[in-house]
C-alpha cells in the first residue's frame, strides 16, 4: 500500500467542507424515529423474533420425530446454513439502512419483481410466525391457568380468549413506540433464556451417566439409518427455530448506528440461539434415552423430563417463560411485519395510509391496527376448524418457515448481484451466497418431497398457493402503477445532517 499522501485533502475538507451534491435534507422514510435505538434494543428485536426459549423447548421434539438419532446434527446443519445466510444478509445491512429489510434488499439486487415476491413471502413469514407466537402464548397461558384454576382452564374457550388478550396487549405495546416494544421484548426474552439454561443445566446435572457419545456420533447419518429426506425434514424444522434472526434489519431507520449494530445483532442471534438449541436438544435426548422412553411419543417433553427427574417446580416456571417468549416473538414479528407494510405503503404498492406514522409515538399505527385483527383471527379460526391447538401450531410454523426460507433464498441470489451493481463484488461473499441459496433450496425441496402428503406438507402447499396469488396480485398492481418502478426499494438515504459540513451547506433547490 502506498504511503499516505500528505494529509492535505482531509485537512482542507475539515477546515472548509466542500459542498456535497446529491444529498437531500430529508430521508424518504422520514416519520419513523430515526437513529434513536441503541444496540441492545436492536439485538433484542432479532432475539425476540427468533424466540429462542420457546423454540428451545418446542423444536427439539419436532426435529427428533423427523431426524431421530441425527437430530443434533440436523440442528447443527440448520445453524450453519443460517449463519451463512446471516452473513449474506449482512452484505446489505452493512451498506444500507431500510425499514423493509429483505424486501428492500432484494429490490436493490434483483429489481422490483423479485422484490415484490420477497415482500409477499415476508408478509406471510412474519405474519404467520406472529400468529404462531400468539397461539403459543395463548396455549401456555392456559397451561399456567390450569395450575391455579383447573376448572376455568377446562373450557375450550380459554385458549382463544388468551390469544385475544395477548393480541390486545401486543397492540398497546406496539402503538406506544419502538423503544417500549424492544425493551419489553428484551426483558421478557432474557428472563426466559435464563430459565431455559437453568433447566438444561439442572437436567444434565441429575443425569446418572456422563456425556452420551452416541447422540453425537454421525454414523447414523453416514450408514443410512437416517435417510437424507428425514435429515432434510429435520433440518427444515430446525430452521424454523432460527427464522427471524434478520428482523433487526427492519430497524435500519430507527437504529442509532445501523451499519455497526444490525450486522452484529443478526450474526450474534444465529450463533447464540444455535448454541442454546444444541445444548437443549442434546440434554432432552439424553434425558429421554436415560429414561428409556421415546421422545417422539411425548407431547411436552421438557415438562415430562422435569417431573421424571423430580424437578416439577421447573414446569411452572417453564410454562411462564415459554408464554413470555412467545409474547416477545409476537411483538417482534409484528414489528417487522408492520415495517414492511409501512415501506410498501410509502412506496405506493399498498394503500398510502399504511405508510402513515403516528405523529406522537412515531409508529406505523395504521399498519399495526390493520394487521393485528388478522393475526388474532386466523389462529382462532384454525383452532375452531382444526379442533386442536397443536394442529394449528404445526400448520402455522411450517407456513411461516416456508415464507422465511423463500425470502432467504431470494436474498442470497440478490446479494452478489447487488454487490456487482455497486462495484463491490468479491469472491467470498459470492461463495457464501451461493452456498446459502443452494442449501436452503435443497432443504425446502427435500421437505416437500418427504412431507408433502402430511398435514404439515399441506401447510407448505397452502403457502405456495398464497405466494403465487399474492405475487400475482402485486404484479397486477405494478402494471397498473408503472411509477412503482421508481419507488420500490426505498431506503433511508444519507441526509445532509450526516455529511461533513452538512450543517453549513445551503439547502438544495
Amino acid at each position: 500500500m502506498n504511503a499516505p499522501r500528505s494529509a492535505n485533502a482531509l485537512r482542507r475538507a475539515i477546515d472548509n467542507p466542500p459542498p456535497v451534491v446529491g444529498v437531500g435534507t430529508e430521508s424518504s422514510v422520514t416519520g419513523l424515529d430515526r437513529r434513536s435505538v441503541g444496540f441492545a434494543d436492536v439485538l433484542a428485536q432479532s432475539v425476540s423474533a427468533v424466540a429462542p426459549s420457546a423454540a428451545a423447548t418446542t423444536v427439539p421434539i419436532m426435529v427428533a420425530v423427523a431426524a431421530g438419532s441425527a437430530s443434533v446434527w440436523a440442528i447443527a446443519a440448520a445453524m450453519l446454513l443460517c449463519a451463512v445466510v446471516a452473513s449474506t444478509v449482512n452484505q446489505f445491512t452493512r451498506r444500507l439502512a431500510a425499514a423493509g429489510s429483505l424486501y428492500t434488499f432484494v429490490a436493490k439486487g434483483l429489481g422490483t419483481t423479485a422484490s415484490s415476491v420477497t415482500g409477499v413471502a415476508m408478509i406471510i413469514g412474519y405474519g404467520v410466525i406472529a400468529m404462531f407466537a400468539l397461539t403459543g402464548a395463548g396455549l401456555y397461558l392456559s397451561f399456567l391457568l390450569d395450575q391455579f384454576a383447573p376448572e376455568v382452564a377446562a373450557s375450550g374457550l380459554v385458549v382463544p380468549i388468551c390469544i385475544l388478550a395477548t393480541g390486545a396487549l401486543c397492540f398497546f405495546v406496539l402503538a406506544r413506540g419502538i423503544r417500549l416494544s424492544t425493551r419489553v421484548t428484551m426483558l421478557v426474552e432474557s428472563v426466559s433464556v435464563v430459565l431455559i439454561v437453568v433447566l438444561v443445566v439442572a437436567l444434565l446435572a441429575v443425569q446418572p451417566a456422563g456425556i452420551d457419545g452416541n447422540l453425537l456420533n454421525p454414523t447414523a447419518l453416514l450408514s443410512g439409518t437416517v435417510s437424507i429426506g428425514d435429515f432434510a425434514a429435520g433440518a427444515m424444522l430446525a430452521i424454523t427455530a432460527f427464522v427471524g434472526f434478520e428482523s433487526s434489519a427492519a430497524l435500519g431507520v430507527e437504529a442509532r448506528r445501523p451499519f455497526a449494530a444490525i450486522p452484529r445483532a443478526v450474526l450474534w442471534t444465529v450463533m447464540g440461539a444455535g448454541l442454546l438449541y444444541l445444548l437443549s436438544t442434546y440434554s432432552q435426548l439424553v434425558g429421554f434415552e436415560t429414561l428409556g422412553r421415546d421422545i417422539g411419543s411425548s407431547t411436552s417433553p421438557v415438562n415430562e423430563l422435569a417431573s421424571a427427574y423430580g424437578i416439577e417446580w421447573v414446569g411452572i416456571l417453564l410454562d411462564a417463560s415459554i408464554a413470555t417468549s412467545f409474547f416477545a416473538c409476537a411483538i417482534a414479528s409484528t414489528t417487522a411485519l408492520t415495517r414492511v407494510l409501512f415501506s410498501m405503503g410509502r412506496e405506493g404498492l399498498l394503500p398510502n395510509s399504511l405508510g402513515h406514522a403516528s405523529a406522537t409515538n412515531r409508529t406505523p399505527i395504521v399498519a399495526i391496527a390493520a394487521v393485528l385483527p388478522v393475526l388474532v383471527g386466523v389462529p382462532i379460526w384454525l383452532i375452531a376448524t382444526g379442533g386442536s391447538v397443536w394442529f394449528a401450531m404445526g400448520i402455522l410454523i411450517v407456513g411461516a418457515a416456508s415464507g422465511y426460507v423463500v425470502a432467504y433464498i431470494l436474498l442470497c441470489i440478490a446479494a452478489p448481484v447487488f454487490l456487482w451493481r455497486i462495484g463491490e463484488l468479491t469472491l467470498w461473499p459470492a461463495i457464501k451466497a451461493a452456498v446459502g441459496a443452494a442449501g436452503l433450496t435443497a432443504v425446502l425441496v427435500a421437505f416437500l418431497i418427504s412431507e408433502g402428503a402430511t398435514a404439515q406438507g399441506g401447510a407448505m402447499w397452502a403457502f405456495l398457493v398464497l405466494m403465487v396469488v399474492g405475487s400475482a396480485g402485486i404484479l397486477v398492481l405494478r402494471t397498473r402503477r408503472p411509477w412503482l418502478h421508481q419507488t420500490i426499494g426505498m431506503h433511508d438515504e444519507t441526509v445532509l445532517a450526516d455529511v461533513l459540513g452538512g450543517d453549513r451547506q445551503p439547502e438544495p433547490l
Partner: protein
Amino acid sequence: MSEGDLSARQPKAIHSALTVLEEVARSGAGVTAREVSDNLGLPRATAYRLLNLLVQDEYLVRMPDLRGFALGRKVVQLAGLVTPQPPPRAARDLIEDLRERTRGGVHLVRYDSDRMRLVDPDPDFPLSDESRILRQLESSALGRLLLAESGRASPAVTVSIRTLGYATQFGELVPARGCIAVPIRDSRGILVAGLGLSGPVERVRDPGRLLDELLRSGRDLGPLLV
C-alpha cells in the same frame, strides 16, 4: 470471522483507514469503492472492508446511490489528529502586520461545530495554558465567542458579546492578564474563526485604537480564510 477482521485490528489499520479517508477527501463526494481501491493500489477486498468499517463508524457515509462515498460528520472529531492547515499567505501577512504594530499576543483559531483549534498562535507571546484554553471554552475570550454562537454561553456573556460585538476575559486564566476576541465570519455570516489579543488587563480593558484595528482585521480575514 475471516482473516480480514484480524488485520483490521492491527495498528497498521489506523494508518490505512486514514489513508482511505484522505483519498475520499481528495477525490470528493461520490467516489466509488473501486476507485478508492485503484487510486490507493489496495487489494479490492481490503479496500472494501476498510470502507465498510469507516461507514460502520460513520466517518464515511454512502451517497444515496449506495455506490459513492462522502466524508461523514464524525470526521470533525479527527481534527485533533490532523494538524491544522496553516492559513493562506495573505492572511498570515495581515496577522504579521498586526503583530508588529501591537504590544501583546495576537492569535488565530478556527472553529468546527463544537470545538476550537489553534491555527496561528503568536510565537512571541505564547498562550498561558494552551490545553486548558482549548478544553474549557468558557475560560477564554476566544472560547466564549464559540459558546455564545452555539447558544451555550452564560446569559451574561452572551449579552456582553451581542452588545460589544466581541468577547472579553479579564484575569480569569492568569491574574492581571486578559484577552479580547473578535469573530471572523464567512459570507453567510457563519462563525468560522476567531482573532484574539492577549495582554495586561489594563491594556485589554482599554484597547483604544487597537480595538478598531482588531475588528477591521477580523472582517478582512473572513474572505481570506474561507
